[in-house]
């Protein structure tokens, strides 16, 4: 049995006050000083911590940001003076897609590397758009056991990137098919470049260190390769250099040490691939295709070329098609591309990497079910560093989370924690589904439940036609 994939994690404390959901406790006049709230009501001891804070004013006041919203103090206050409300700063976080809840859970996961657990059932909407309009299946009786998660059995999250032969030929019991090069990753996550406006140069070497620690890879624009410093030479096998249309190829001594390289889609891709393969025939080449109005069709078209190994489809950070008035979502575009390739009988030959809109671990599992072999992330890693998605950096202002000043220990630790806990959650979902391999999860839409299908199948037959999108 191969050694089990494991990411070492350790708790990395936050640098900044947390912005909890229940941030404001309103002390009104007329307090009886009975200390009921301090001594009895708050089982989390937040009020005592508040006293401590008052004594040591040099520390930030984070304790009320950690209020659990149990209302005990509000309801037990002798004079009924306390009120609790939602922290307006909390509500302001995010961009609509990356919601305050997503940001808060990402902070916690990056801090503790623990799977988020809570009680009292699900609290959210029945369904939603994007990834919220589908559920993953579970297997009631036959499945790998929970031991798959905790020990005896092995649930593999490994994936292969590259072109796979349609069939294998043998002669005299010997394989005669020439096997194309493949890159294997222990986890179906690649670290994606950040959009130009969210670019923090100091993060690049840290991201590489995270890729090395987790055994995955990072996409780095070749024009920033100097930022990798000394790490670059030692860890070229973890780097995917991205080359724009006009960017010249990296020197041959570097090309020869790479496992995967990415070039932008253009009308000269065949020529570029030939130039790369001429230097290093074992180097797998990925074609980056923007999911604009033509992205789906272009990806399908590219997949039919025998020299294409990997297609990297890229939507915007929120998972939307670019430049469209009514943009499609990444999961739907992936399904269209995947299904088309399945119909054409070429799906298994091509690797599909998908970018954009992957904000939570569940999105990774769902995107793979919809047809991606591998997903990439960038913004969740930034949020893991206590980014609040305030967009100050995008607009050219100073980062309130001071991401440009973080230490390597903090940055590498938090981002590693996040990938580790995403991996754990992928295993949870796969364990429930009875899937032993992430490779087999790809495109398994039969093991997912889609809102539209369920509605049609159950309510549609009783209540007519659905009139609400």
């Amino acid at each position, binding site marked *: 049995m191969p050694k089990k994939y494991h990411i070492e994690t350790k708790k990395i404390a936050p640098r900044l006050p947390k912005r909890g*959901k229940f941030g404001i406790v309103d002390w009104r006049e007329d307090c009886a000083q009975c200390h009921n709230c301090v001594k009895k009501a*708050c*089982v989390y001891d937040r009020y005592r911590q508040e006293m401590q804070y008052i004594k040591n004013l040099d520390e930030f006041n984070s304790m009320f940001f950690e209020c*659990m*919203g*149990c*209302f*005990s103090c*509000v*309801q*037990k206050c002798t004079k*009924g003076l306390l*009120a609790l*409300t*939602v922290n307006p700063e909390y509500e302001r976080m995010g961009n609509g897609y990356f919601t305050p809840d997503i940001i808060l*859970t990402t902070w916690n996961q990056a801090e503790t590397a623990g*799977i*988020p*657990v*809570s*009680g*009292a*059932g*699900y*609290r*959210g*909407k*029945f*369904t939603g758009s994007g990834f919220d309009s589908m*559920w*993953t*299946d*579970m297997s*009631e*009786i*036959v*499945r790998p*056991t*929970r031991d798959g998660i*905790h020990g005896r059995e092995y649930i593999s999250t490994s994936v292969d990137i590259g072109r796979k032969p349609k069939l294998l030929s043998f002669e005299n019991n010997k394989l005669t098919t020439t096997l194309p090069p493949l890159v294997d990753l222990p986890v179906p996550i690649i670290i994606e470049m950040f959009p130009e406006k969210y670019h923090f140069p100091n993060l690049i070497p840290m991201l590489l260190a995270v890729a090395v620690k987790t055994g995955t890879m990072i996409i780095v624009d070749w024009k920033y390769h100097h930022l990798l410093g000394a790490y670059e030479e030692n860890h070229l096998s973890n780097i995917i250099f991205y080359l724009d249309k006009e960017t010249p190829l990296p020197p041959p001594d570097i090309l020869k040490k790479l496992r995967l390289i990415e070039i932008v889609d253009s009308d000269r891709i065949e020529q570029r691939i030939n130039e790369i393969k001429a230097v290093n025939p074992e180097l797998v080449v990925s074609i980056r295709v923007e999911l604009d109005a033509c992205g789906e069709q272009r990806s399908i078209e590219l997949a039919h070329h025998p020299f294409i190994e990997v297609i990297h489809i890229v939507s915007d950070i929120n998972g939307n098609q670019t430049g469209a008035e009514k943009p499609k979502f990444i999961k739907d575009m992936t399904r269209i591309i995947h299904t088309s390739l399945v119909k054409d009988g070429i799906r298994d030959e091509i690797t599909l990497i998908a970018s954009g809109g992957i904000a939570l*671990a*569940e999105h990774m599992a*769902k995107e793979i079910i919809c047809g991606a072999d591998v997903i990439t992330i960038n913004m969740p890693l930034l949020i893991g560093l206590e980014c609040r998605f305030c967009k100050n950096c995008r607009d050219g202002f100073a980062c309130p989370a001071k991401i440009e000043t973080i230490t390597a220990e903090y940055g590498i630790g938090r981002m590693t924690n996040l990938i580790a806990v995403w991996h754990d*959650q992928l295993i*949870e*979902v796969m*364990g*429930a589904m009875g899937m032993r391999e992430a490779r087999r999860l790809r495109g398994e839409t039969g093991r997912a*439940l889609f809102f539209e299908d*369920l509605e049609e*199948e*159950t*309510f549609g037959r*009783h*209540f*007519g*036609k*659905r*009139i*609400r999108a």
Partner: protein
Amino acid sequence: MEGILARELGLKEVLPENTIKTLVPQVEVDREVKPAPSRYRNEIAKYIIRRSSDCKLCGKCAQVCPHGVHVLKPGYKLFSAPHLNVCIGPSCQKTDHYCIDLCPNKALQMVENPMLKSMGDYRWTPDMLMATWKMAETGEAPLPEYGYDYETGASGGGFDRLRFKFPEKPPVELQDDDIDTSIILNRRNDGRPQVKIDVPWYGGGMSFGSVSNVIQLSKARAATAFNTFTCTGEGGYMERMKPYDDHVITQIATGLFGVREETIQRVRIVEFKYAQGAKPGLGGHLLADKVTPTVAKMRETVLGISLFSPFPFHSVYSIEDHQKHMDWIKHVNRRTLIATKVSTPNDVDMVAVGSYSAGTHIVHLDGGYGGTGAAPDIAKKNIAMPIEYAIVKVHRFLEQEGIRDKVTLIASGGLRTSHDIAKAIALGADGVVVGTSELVALGCIRCSRCESGRGCPRGIATTDPELAKDIDLDWGTQRIINMYAAWRKELVEILKRLGLRSVSELRGRTDLLMHLDYTNDSETHP
């Protein structure tokens, strides 16, 4: 005093000679509704009244308010904290005792409580929480004047978008006493008792460990009062539950914690738990902090060590294996019924039919949005289908297979009110299992911190002796009884308005429902 089963059936006829007689005298609990006010000093109210400095303390407001909102105690110059929870809000404006208008100094102002924004969630809205508390306190649904919009949540789908198509006038004039809300749990005609419960619901499995002793007992006593059941969950059977044996379902889950022949022989229903809606496919996990000496003793495990219930049963990989398990239980207890609790995967219909063919009496579907205990967030939201779909799917398939009337279909997972219960039955279930609602009746505010540290700050999902002290057994029992009573009244009212004499007649009547997101054009879409 002998138990109901003993009285109705005669134990000697039912129990084989080699079965140990373990029944102890059973306790009866009165179903009577009695006031059970909130255990908190300050109740959370929908509306608050602000008193400005213009108040001249004339006492007019206290004088006119028939609900007793304003409190000016004799001999005191200043008002005490108002009882805002009994204020009926803006609907009072239509009356002649609206304090805001009658205040001679215009010193009062009424606003919706801004704190409600921080309470509840899409599934359990603040109104639903407060209405449930009100029912638990009084045994009645809150009057319309209170303005609680509690019949549906705000999740935007499933039960929250379904409505009953009530005719303007009931097709048949019925009185409350004409309505039968009971259901039968054994339809197999296999010689085992039919077991009838007076209301179409029973209490969900919550183990000692996940909730306190008092909570389990309160649930058991309320179940006894309403001649229904509660479930021990996984983790053993407390000695203190023995007087309620006739109303307890003992659970056999994958960890087999606390499962002993002696406990199986005591009960009328044994439940096999394959999965649970809160974490479908993931088994159970009792955190180390909650494994106190008592829990460890009952589960026969080690103090302070996390306990995993694996997934699935290591001995069940087919329907035949499932049958083998049931045969074992049926042999150990010749009078018991078997319930099989499963989650809601894509092939839930096949699972239900398979389970029936293996010999189960009750198929219990636990939908993906339910659950009371701690669970990974990724599981709660994403794994398995919501119960609304599963009920329809299974009911339909059981009908197609011609076995619908031979199995009792019970649904759970996100049912919050009597209206949800009625809708679940109209979609095709025979009855339901409730869990969260019982906890809300006991004061749960759904802060979701069941798992953290010592456990629930409200003294419910905890084994911490100090926190558990917050709930008194009589009070806990009464709160659940009151909520059950209010639910039953509401259910009777629904059936009356639909002209149905029994809740069984409602089963599968999707024609009585409409969905707000559909054309509801049954002629073109039969």
